[in-house]
């Protein structure tokens, strides 16, 4: 009985720690909002400017996008219509991913993770290249 309990507890501990570790592994390298602000600043979001802008303009708005809760729940069409067609890639090709910095050995993108209803469920800043 005790052995069974120990086994079950070990299994739960292993499961939880593996899930936490794998989550970060699967996600790859990401940046927190504070790190984004420190690296690229905190310019307020102007979607037209983002759509037409180069990487230096896009990266400055990354913080605003990341912290703008009103974008959560918006559908994919809204994102593509307002932010333009995307040039990055994350996990599956239906996630709109916009490259915001493209330098040798350091490519970053802002990713709108969507659900099957094609609505944004999470926004992350992810290192596209290179680990």
């Amino acid at each position: 009985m005790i052995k069974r309990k120990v086994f079950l507890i070990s299994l739960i501990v292993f499961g939880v720690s593996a899930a936490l570790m794998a989550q970060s592994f699967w996600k790859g390298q990401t940046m927190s909002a504070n790190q984004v602000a420190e690296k690229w600043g905190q310019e307020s979001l102007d979607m037209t400017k983002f759509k037409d802008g180069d990487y230096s303009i896009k990266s400055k708005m990354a913080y605003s996008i990341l912290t703008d809760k009103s974008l959560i729940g918006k559908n994919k069409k809204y994102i593509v219509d307002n932010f333009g067609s995307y040039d990055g890639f994350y996990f599956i090709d239906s996630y709109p991913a916009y490259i915001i910095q493209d330098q040798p050995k350091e490519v970053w993108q802002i990713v709108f993770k969507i659900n099957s209803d094609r609505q944004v469920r999470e926004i992350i800043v992810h290192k596209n290249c290179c680990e």
Partner: protein
Amino acid sequence: MFVLEKYKHLLQYFIMAGISLLILLLALSFQVRASVCDDWFVKSKISKGEQCVSSCLTARTDLSTFLCPQSCDKLCGASSEIDHLLQSYGLTRDEIVFCRSHASVCLAAYALTWEAETVCAGIYGKSSKNDESDACRHFYWSVLLSRKFGLKQAKTILNAHENTPDEPDDERQMDLKNNSVGMMFFKTNPKSTDAELLQFFKDGLKSNKFSILAPKHGKNGGLP
């Protein structure tokens, strides 16, 4: 620190294997429970509509179904936990239908997307859209799927993945074309090595076998 760095990849593979197993067990347990509760829901003759949830919550249960009322909102909404799990990852409707009945194949198939992306990121570094790295991912994924599950099932998975209403038609056509190059390669080279696969991809770029809407490495035969 050096030892940790040295075994980092091995550790990552172990973690992924552990997680895949956990997700599989979770998905299977959801499926078993969902199936028992679906039967219970039908046998209880609960009609879907305004009174569905209250009828469901008060319906008679036995030892095997006493937890089913916890799923009443989902049963009434014709949804299930596995659907919810799959939907949150942005899979297409066809993929959800496929994954519901082939949970283990589905998980293995998506583990292969990771493998394909790793190979292509190794070639191109940056993962982008509509360019050579995109063609690479589709080509590799289709070959890896065909190797593991055979052509028929690979085609089902690949087509389900492309059935998205919001993807521009030219992009879908590009993906389908590159998938078909992968499946054709497997058909003619079912026992190919990884080195042969890579060589075929490189040669294919030079001979324009792949569909690439926005080439970035045209001057260098499609390679960086």
